């Protein structure tokens, strides 16, 4: 066990080191552009998972929070004439605005469960998209252009890259803290049997709502960072239905409700998507991604990491059983010999 822990810590250090030196090694702006996109998806997939993966309430409306953060950034940077690193100070505010939006969204959507919840989050998405195309503050369908950051062109991407990296590390750390806290436990109990959890004293509504709000806060910051990086805000890109599908796919791919799952999903799928888009013309990459979605939901519904972990545990148990004699009949041993197959 300690060997495994050391290995994991070493892996983490290597990963962090790679993230730290990446823009120094790969100075090509296309490489850092891909990396920034990927890091933003690490942030959003982890934030999405912190709510949806832990609580079981699958949101297909996180683009609402992403877009809210983005539009806040676009409007505020223009109106308040903030540019460069001063504009970065707007990120927490953008998160706050997205979190505020999440309160009414949650109060309405979290009254219902499962499919109905999913449908309501989609409805909120379309309301937001419609609003963005028609309101004057968002510039309607002609969009908004953000002030151009005054960074040297050779290293233009680097401030964005490092900010995204820091946000990604903080988000993953927060997800880890939430998961091992009593609060995270209550979220996962809600996922397994919400009524039973309520019957055991869990205040289900405040727990669910605060998780959604926290998730929206982070997602809003990511949206703000992204829009400042690309420099323009158009309704169909800021509120993009494929955004939510991509985020959900990443979390499912790596492992819903785990910490490393959404990170792995983003690290594998976002570069793959970018690469495919470069290789193909038109919509082939999106069709391929749709197919991948189906394959994962059908064959790896619990994700790559949990499935791999299960095979590992099974393998170890077989080895251990070969070494030991079968156990006696105390209650715990009775269950060990009889249970084991009813995992969903």
């Amino acid at each position, binding site marked *: 066990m300690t060997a495994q822990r050391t290995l994991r810590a070493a892996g983490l250090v290597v990963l962090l080191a790679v993230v730290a030196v990446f823009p120094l090694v790969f100075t090509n702006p296309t490489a850092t552009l891909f990396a920034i996109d990927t890091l933003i998806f690490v942030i959003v997939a982890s934030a999405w998972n912190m709510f949806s993966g832990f609580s079981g309430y699958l949101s297909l409306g996180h683009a609402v929070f992403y877009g809210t953060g983005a539009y806040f950034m676009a409007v505020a940077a223009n109106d308040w004439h903030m540019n460069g690193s001063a504009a970065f100070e707007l990120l927490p505010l953008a998160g706050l605005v997205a979190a505020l939006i999440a309160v009414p969204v949650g109060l309405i959507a979290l009254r219902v469960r499962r499919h109905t919840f999913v449908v309501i989050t989609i409805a909120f998405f379309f309301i937001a998209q419609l609003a963005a195309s028609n309101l004057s503050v968002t510039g309607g369908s002609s969009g908004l252009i953000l002030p151009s950051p005054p960074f040297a062109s050779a290293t233009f991407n680097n401030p964005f890259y490092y900010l995204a990296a820091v946000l990604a590390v903080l988000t993953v750390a927060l997800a880890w803290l939430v998961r091992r806290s*009593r609060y995270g*436990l*209550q979220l*996962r*109990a809600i*996922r*397994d*049997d919400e*009524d*039973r*959890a*309520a*019957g*055991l*004293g*869990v*205040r289900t509504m405040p727990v669910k709502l605060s998780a959604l709000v926290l998730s929206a806060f982070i997602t809003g910051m990511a949206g703000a960072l992204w829009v400042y990086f690309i420099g323009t805000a158009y309704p169909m890109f800021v509120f993009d239905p494929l955004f939510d599908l991509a985020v959900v796919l990443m979390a499912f791919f790596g492992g819903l*409700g785990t910490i490393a799952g959404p990170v792995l999903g983003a690290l594998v799928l976002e570069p793959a998507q970018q690469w495919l888009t470069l290789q193909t013309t038109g919509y082939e990459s999106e069709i391929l991604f749709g197919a991948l979605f189906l394959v994962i939901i059908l064959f790896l519904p619990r994700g790559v990491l949990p499935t791999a972990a299960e095979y590992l545990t099974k393998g170890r148990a077989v080895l251990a059983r070969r070494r030991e004699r079968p156990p006696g*009949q*105390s*209650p*715990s*041993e*009775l*269950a*060990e010999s*009889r*249970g*084991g*197959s*009813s*995992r*969903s």
Partner: protein
Amino acid sequence: MTAELATRGITKSFGGVQALAECTLTAPSGQITGLIGPNGSGKTTLFNIITGYERPDAGQVFLGSQEITKAAPRRVFALGVGRTFQLTRIFPRLTVLENMLVPSGHLRGGPAGSPGQRNSAGGGRGHRERAMELLAFTGIDGLSGALAGTLSYGQRKLLELSYVLVADPAVVLLDEPAGGVNPSLVNHLADRISELNKAGRTFLIVEHNMDFVMGLCHQVTVLDYGTVIASGPPDLIRNDPRVLDAYLGSALLDAQAADEPAVDD
């Protein structure tokens, strides 16, 4: 101190099905009360109404002198009434120990040492330690790291009983605790319940296993078509003609037949 649980005139129907009709019963403080009756006689429905999972059409539920008829499940639990479900409701994707940490251990608003807090009087001990103690008490501490979804049926029943005990409820409602449980575990379970009762807890237990009920309970109440048809000590109940009538050809008669020769000797 524990509390008495009582229902008065509880009536409930589902569409055309009358599940409970004027059901009045008492689970006296500090005693183990058995609740028996044929399938569909309304036992589980009564549990659901007492614990706030269903609303009665009429009637009242009392915990001591306090009326709790319309209290939500969370509030009923907070007031010190814990329950298990006929088909256990554990959290399958949490480990056994994590299941134990879901219920709040300090729910009752009252001061430390308030009713039912006997076991946590020591103060500074963590939630986790207490959870492990309870798992050791029910005998499944060896499984604390296993996913609850991998437990056998009997183990799930023990786990559900264990985590209900985390909050130190004064009254515990068990819906068929021995149903489908390995016979070697049934005695273990009866011993644990008996021990908890000696420490002062009130029990109301629905069970079809008549040996279990008659051996464990201080008094037994019989439901038939949603109404109480008899109530009293086990020895009287097993010979009550109305009860035999309700149970014609079912479990009680079998238990009766098995017992008779010994009595006649």
